């Protein structure tokens, strides 16, 4: 094993060893904050009109009358066994609810990042090509504008324009209301391909288009700006000048040397964006009635469904921590300048 690979392995192990501590802190914080937050799940479930006997009965049934410390220990013990418990409002296993709604968020996340890349990268390159010209300034303003627009407002505007005014896009949801969706993995695009169903594929892409392109457009500014700035910096660097002096073609310099180096910070940005989106783009999912994990979290919070909120937060924490770890290791592997 080479010295570098051994170093990378040690670095990875160190990072991995921190994950359980991070998750313990997050899960304990979620537990405490939910109990400190005002409101009672019993009220959220049966309303304020129920008598005290019914309330007590439901509290006992849901285990809410247990001492907090007992609730905490059984909660931690269950998490260690990957048992997130049952939803207080539906009695359905929390893991089932998460697994049902997570594919929707991940699908939206994947296609949004893809749209952001497809929109952001060409705009960044066009801006760089026209450095200092009117186009460059317009694209810079556009880039800054996209990531300063509040996502929920952008989503509502897109919905109003394309769904209500032009009527070219569905108002919300993942699939036509009047049709049964393919159910294999939960990823509708993938399921449509797996079941060889072209109509379902068209329908799922049609429903995915507006939310993912809108979210992608709003994220594209970060991608175009980062690419523009990093590529500009790289192209002005000494090693690029040296390569030009050696007579290497500009195309080769750009593709083989400048672009890979300029993409390194973008890998970090993509990783972090992906991590946050996989946990659900909350207001986007609410606006487009997208049945993802963030919409489920939003509903669970309003219902004071403690177990479901805890489950979703821990699940997304695991996801974010794992993706961050992956990005860290990837960067460490790709960039020899990084010390570890």
């Amino acid at each position: 094993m080479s010295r570098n690979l051994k170093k990378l392995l040690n670095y990875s192990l160190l990072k991995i060893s921190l994950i359980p501590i991070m998750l313990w802190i997050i899960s304990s914080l979620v537990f405490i904050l939910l109990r400190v937050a005002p409101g009672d799940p019993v009220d959220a479930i049966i309303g304020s009109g129920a008598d005290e006997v019914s309330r007590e009965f439901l509290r006992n049934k849901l285990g809410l009358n247990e001492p907090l410390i007992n609730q905490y220990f059984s909660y931690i013990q269950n998490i260690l066994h990957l048992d997130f418990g049952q939803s207080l409002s539906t009695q359905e296993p929390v893991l089932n609810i998460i697994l049902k709604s997570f594919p929707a968020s991940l699908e939206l996340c994947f296609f949004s990042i893809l749209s952001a890349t497809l929109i952001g990268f060409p705009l960044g390159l066009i801006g760089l090509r026209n450095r200092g010209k009117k186009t460059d300034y317009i694209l810079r303003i556009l880039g800054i504008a996209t990531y300063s627009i509040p996502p929920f407002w952008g989503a509502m505007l897109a919905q109003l324009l394309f769904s209500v005014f032009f009527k070219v896009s569905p108002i919300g949801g993942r699939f036509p209301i009047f049709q049964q969706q393919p159910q294999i993995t939960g990823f509708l695009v993938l399921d449509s391909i797996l079941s060889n169903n072209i109509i379902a594929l068209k329908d799922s892409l049609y429903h995915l288009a507006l939310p993912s392109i809108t979210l992608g457009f709003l994220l594209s500014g970060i991608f175009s700006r980062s690419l523009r700035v990093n590529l500009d910096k790289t192209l002005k660097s000494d090693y690029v000048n040296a390569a030009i002096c050696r007579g290497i073609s500009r195309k080769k310099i750009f593709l083989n040397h400048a672009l890979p180096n300029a993409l390194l910070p973008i890998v970090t940005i993509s990783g972090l964006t992906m991590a946050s989106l996989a946990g659900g783009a909350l207001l986007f999912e609410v606006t487009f009635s997208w049945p993802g994990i963030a919409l489920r979290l939003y509903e669970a919070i309003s219902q004071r469904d403690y177990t479901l909120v805890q489950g979703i937060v821990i699940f997304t924490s695991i996801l974010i921590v794992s993706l961050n770890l992956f990005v860290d290791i990837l960067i460490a592997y790709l960039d020899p300048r990084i010390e570890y």
Partner: protein
Amino acid sequence: MKKNFLITIFIFFISLLPNSCGSKNISQKIIVASYGKIESLDPANANTLKALQLISSLGDTLYELSSNGELIPKLALEMPIISKDRLKITINLRKNVLFHDGTSFNSNAIKFTFDRFKNIGKMNYILGNRIKSIETPSEFSVIINLNKPSSSLNGLLTSVYLTPISPIFYKEYSDKYLNEKFIGTGKYVLTSFSNEVQLINPNLDYWGEKPLNKGISFVGYSNSSSLFGALKSKQIDVLLSNSIDDIQRNSLNNLSKNKKFKEGNSPFSELSFISLRTSSYPLNNLNLRLALAKSINRKLISEKVSYGLRKPSRSIIPPILKNDNQGLWPKYDYLEARSLLQKENYCNGNILKIPLTYRSNVPADKLIALTWQEEIKNSLKDCIDIELNGVESTTVYKNLSLGIYTAVILDWTGAYSDPEAYLTPLLSCNEIVDGICKKGESVYSGSFWGSNKVESLFLESEKISGHKRLEKLVEIEKIAANSIPYIPIWISSQKAWSQNKISKPIFNGAGIISLSDLKLIDE
């Protein structure tokens, strides 16, 4: 290259057009949309209006309340037969009725459904301790034995929570919920269920009149704007109004007046009111409560907040349930309010400070509070100062019985169609000390008001029925109106809008839309 790029983009956007991409609704199912999702189709677990709406299409209750408040037998063959001591109710059941699983509906199904709801029903408190046992003397006859006479049981028998389910299908679910399926006797059968979309088809073996449509697609959107936009862009056929914003409700109302949509209204059933803490200073003083009641300009609030779509109410019982529109609570009269306050040494430099709590997550509540505050500033500025305090609803509900709120804006919809379903939760009390309720329903409504007279009238009303019972219940309301533990503000109805190609939505007396009556007009 630039040209090719632009052409590609253009083709991509063209491909988004519905004609080229999205599937068309060729099933001729009617798409009905409303707010939120359905977590459970189990009558013992369901607690949202939307779920109850769907369950009522998939199942039948023993009785139904017509739009003019009359009891109509559904799975019951005739009106209930009540014994002389009023402790035994015999119901003869309809024969040749099949559940969706092909099994027969009979008295065992009623016993199974009632017992199951009593044991695991989330809303089982609506039964109270009324029902002692259920007997099944024959296959199509059931006897409900009561612990004490209860004339409100008739209303309870219309409750969707008690929709009979197949005992055979639910055998393994007698003590747990079955959320994603429903096997009842209704006009429709469930063909597909997800939390967001539910598909129902006509039940070909239905015992009664068949639905007028070829099925319903029931869809939930997570915000009011989407619902509004979906109706306007014709992506849905019918919109149910639960939780739609007042401004959009008003816009749809105007569009309906201009014949762009058809609008259906349910009877008024949702009451908004202010609960006053009568157990402690300052509102333990009747004159002050009376002054507050007279300072509320309901008409103005209705016009400013709901564009006049919610009906100002001086009663806590919906008009349909007491067969009149009589308002018993004091009318708006700020001059009289001023003189009452002056009698209690307020005004002229001594200002009565009233902290008014509203549920911050209910937009209408905040607007009611602000409008009342402004009205007070205009007419009684030197006498009353309303201090607003927004608190999230679940916190409000939790703290109500602790007596934290001097005055709080709330709403209430009866769990079944009977005046008692409005009076009991607001006015009844189990333990009264010096006119203050220590234990009972009025504690949980935040008023802490109790009256021995009211309790005895409640007991008397259980022993009689019909018009005499109604008179007793109205007498209870009169006592409350004179003591003012609450100030009713308005009463609102459910609304539904349909596209012009669909028939007008019709509601029954319990505020449930009759999905089977919806039909495509060009069919």
